[in-house]
């Protein structure tokens, strides 16, 4: 009789402060397992965001830095440039990364910083009590979109993988989800590859994970998984958007111009 499944050793015993059924916890574990498997706990530095996961550093046995809201990629850049031997990853929410921090993530990706980003997209500002995020779905009721998000006034949800994939600099960019065990396992594989690419000093890596916020969606945990599947998945397709092995394919995805004859 052996233990088939136990908490990662890079994580500690502390119970999280997350609401019941919040999939932040699942994603935390996947990151912890990856760090275990790669054996990098002693040279890893995490960058915490401002968002529900601001206290992420309470749950790991690794060093952490706490960034101002949205700036984790800049801290990661500073840390990684100063100490290229460290493994540096950021963990950011959608308000943090896709709203206030858009500039920092775009430019860290464009410079090709050798860092890993775990981007938890739960289509809402969890920590501050459920305001609309740039990633909130059309019609989604939030505390700042009481009549539902109106794309005519607030635009459509931002798709960060699609946006970052247009950058020419090689990168690994993938969208995953944890609303079924199968997908959680795939998410883990994506996170693992993201860390591995950093270990190989190859490129910037970015794993978006669709996640639930039962509390601020006002939907019980299990139903929240279904809501994610029914509402978010069709708009946020899963998949590898960019891979350094397939840089050429990525390049081809750049829309073609109208007048090729001017281009030479």
């Amino acid at each position, binding site marked *: 009789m052996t*233990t088939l*499944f*136990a908490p990662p050793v890079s994580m500690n015993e502390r*119970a*999280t402060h997350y609401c019941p059924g*919040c999939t932040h916890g*699942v994603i935390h574990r996947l990151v912890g397992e990856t760090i275990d*498997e790669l054996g990098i706990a002693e040279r890893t530095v995490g960058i915490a965001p401002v968002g529900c996961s601001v206290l992420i550093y309470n749950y790991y046995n690794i060093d952490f830095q706490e960034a101002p809201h949205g700036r984790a990629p800049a801290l990661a850049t500073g840390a990684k440039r100063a100490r290229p031997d460290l493994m540096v990853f950021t963990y950011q929410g959608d308000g943090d990364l896709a709203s206030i921090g858009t500039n920092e993530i775009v430019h860290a990706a464009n410079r090709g910083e050798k860092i890993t980003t775990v981007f938890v997209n739960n289509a809402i500002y969890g920590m501050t009590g459920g305001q609309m995020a740039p990633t909130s779905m059309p019609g989604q009721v939030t505390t700042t979109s009481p009549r539902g998000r109106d794309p005519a006034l607030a635009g459509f949800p931002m798709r960060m993988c699609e946006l970052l994939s247009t950058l020419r600099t090689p990168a690994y960019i993938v969208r995953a989800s944890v609303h079924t065990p199968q997908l959680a396992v795939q998410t883990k594989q994506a996170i693992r590859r993201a860390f591995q690419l950093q270990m190989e000093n190859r490129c910037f890596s970015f794993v978006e994970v669709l996640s639930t916020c039962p509390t601020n969606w006002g939907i019980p945990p299990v139903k929240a998984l279904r809501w994610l599947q029914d509402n978010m998945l069709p708009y946020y397709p899963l998949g590898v958007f960019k891979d350094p092995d397939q840089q050429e394919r990525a390049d081809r995805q750049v829309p073609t111009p109208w007048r090729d004859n001017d281009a030479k």
Partner: protein
Amino acid sequence: MPSIQVDRDRCKGCELCNDACPQGILGMSKQINIKGYFYAEVIDPGRCIGCMLCAVMCPDLAIAVHGTAVQYRLYDYFQPEQR
């Protein structure tokens, strides 16, 4: 025989494990734990296949799974590189 162990005082009663279990052998206790949640518990331990889906979905590291090493597993959870 595979089995799981729910750390009842870590559990937040979210029922994600319950939802994930292909054998339908998890249920929620009528008791509350120290945090005040109705925690998850195994209703029919004999039918557990050690697939670990419950543990994979638990956000709170509340589930450990035990079994023999040759246990059949649905996903290559720990050896992605072998796929």
